């Protein structure tokens, strides 16, 4: 039996949903123009199932982007996924957004990837994605972001979202620009299948942004 996986991405604030049978992607919401601009998870999931001739009882796994990123959006998707998992008694597995965008950009650029997204002001999340692994994932202040960027600027590609508004934040060298802030469903599925192979299985997910609470001075 090939496993049917639902893939939910929302932490960038733009929702995208995929449905896969084993390693084959059956549906990618990016190609469904009726969904463009909608923020209703149910609409996306219904479209994914309908277009693939599946029902909610065909689902075996749900993989969810749990941020860091937009808290409201991530929480909405997490609540939805948790409830489907609860009702259908299937695993719901959370994936760090930096693994998702890291995998995507690493695939494109063949380089390690520095991922950065703003957290509660004035802080940031950052991490380094290299060889299919996320390291140095942390909740940091602007100075640490700057030195991390300087350290990796020549060897890494950049993903996520970052802009530093005041001129005093600007370093001598120009900021690199991010290549992507969302992942493709092909990339999402790759990461999901790797998690599955590792035997990672949970029944509920929670946005990452809320579990890292250490204060940054």
């Amino acid at each position, binding site marked *: 039996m090939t496993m049917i996986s639902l893939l939910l991405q929302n932490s960038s604030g733009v929702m995208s949903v995929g449905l896969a049978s084993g390693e084959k992607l059956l549906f990618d919401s990016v190609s469904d123009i009726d969904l463009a601009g909608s923020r*209703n*998870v*149910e609409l996306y*999931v*219904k479209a994914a199932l309908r277009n693939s001739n599946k029902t*909610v009882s065909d689902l075996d796994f749900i993989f969810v982007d749990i941020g860091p990123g937009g*808290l*409201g959006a991530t*929480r*909405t*998707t*997490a*609540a*939805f*996924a*948790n*409830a*489907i998992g*609860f*009702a*259908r008694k299937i695993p719901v597995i959370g994936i760090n957004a930096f693994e998702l965008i890291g995998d995507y950009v690493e695939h494109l650029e063949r380089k390690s990837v520095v991922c950065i997204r703003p957290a509660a002001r004035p802080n940031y999340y950052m991490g380094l994605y290299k060889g299919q692994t996320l390291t140095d994932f942390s909740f940091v202040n602007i100075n640490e972001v700057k030195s991390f960027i300087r350290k990796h600027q020549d060897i890494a590609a950049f993903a996520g979202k970052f802009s530093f508004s005041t001129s005093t934040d600007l370093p001598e060298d120009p900021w690199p620009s991010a290549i992507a802030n969302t992942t493709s469903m092909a990339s999402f599925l790759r990461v999901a299948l790797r998690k599955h192979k590792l035997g990672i299985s949970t029944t*509920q997910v*929670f*946005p990452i942004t*809320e579990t890292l609470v250490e204060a940054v001075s």
Partner: protein
Amino acid sequence: MTNFILGLETSCDDTSVALVDRSGNVKAIETVSQYKVHSEFGGVYPELASRAHLEAILPVIESVMGTARVATSQLAAIGVTRGPGLMGSLLVGLSTAQALGMAWDLPVHGINHLRGHICSVDLEVKRLKYPAVVLLVSGGHTLLAYVPDEKTYELMGTTRDDSAGECYDKVARTLGLGMPGGPALDRMALTGNASIKFPRPMINSGYEFSFSGLKSSVARYVDTHEGLNVNDVSASFVAACIDVLSSKVLRAVQDKNPKTLAVVGGVAASPQLRSRMQDISEQTGVTLCLPPIKWSTDNAAMIAMAAWDYIDQGIITDLEPRPNLSLDQA
């Protein structure tokens, strides 16, 4: 047999789940208070509230369905609060309800929390006779509603700033009585003398309320008086608050001549308010209806009860969160 509506309430700081049948009997209810999460901050923090709802909601649903031994096949629908309330908290309830509706193939009704409060009057016992005047006073709301029949909800007046319950909590904090402050304040007031003349904002005009002036006036008094008598300050504050509420209720009763006067919301627990409402009932002949406090404070049974009403009346709503939903909207 599809006997029950599963009600979900997550608009503020309590996660509540209930199963209610067509006649308003509450088969099971469980409410998880976030009181501990918020007490150290001295208020409700939206991010914490939303996170706590996400953690609590499915375990509470599982527990309620399990305790009641109700299978999903016995559910007629899901009713979930869509507003008013905190955005992040509403989203958790709505998103959960949508997903459960999809997975269990059940209709989902987005419910106005304020109408839920009014429907709470009929939980377990049919109490409301129309036309009715309803006073809703809690930490989240202060409003007077005219309900001429089971289909119509008219907002007579609401607060322009703080709710009465908020004002109670803030004054209790000013006096060092902790949180939640309402019951402590009422207790102190019982043995105090209402000798301090605090303002009674808008007491003679219309049905709108305003409590922020009263709150600051108490704070000013506390700041400028040393060795004050906390019981007297409490009694004077409560007297001012109850004077405002009851003068508007009396006017509404005289104006609308209803069959019932119902008082709901957390502040309905106040013995001072209850006795004053009793006076109004005796003075005007209106039947006073004070449902049990457990149905007066935020709970999911009232949301399920309102969902039955929505079904009866064919009210269709969407499942978008409406943080500022008003009583006249479904």
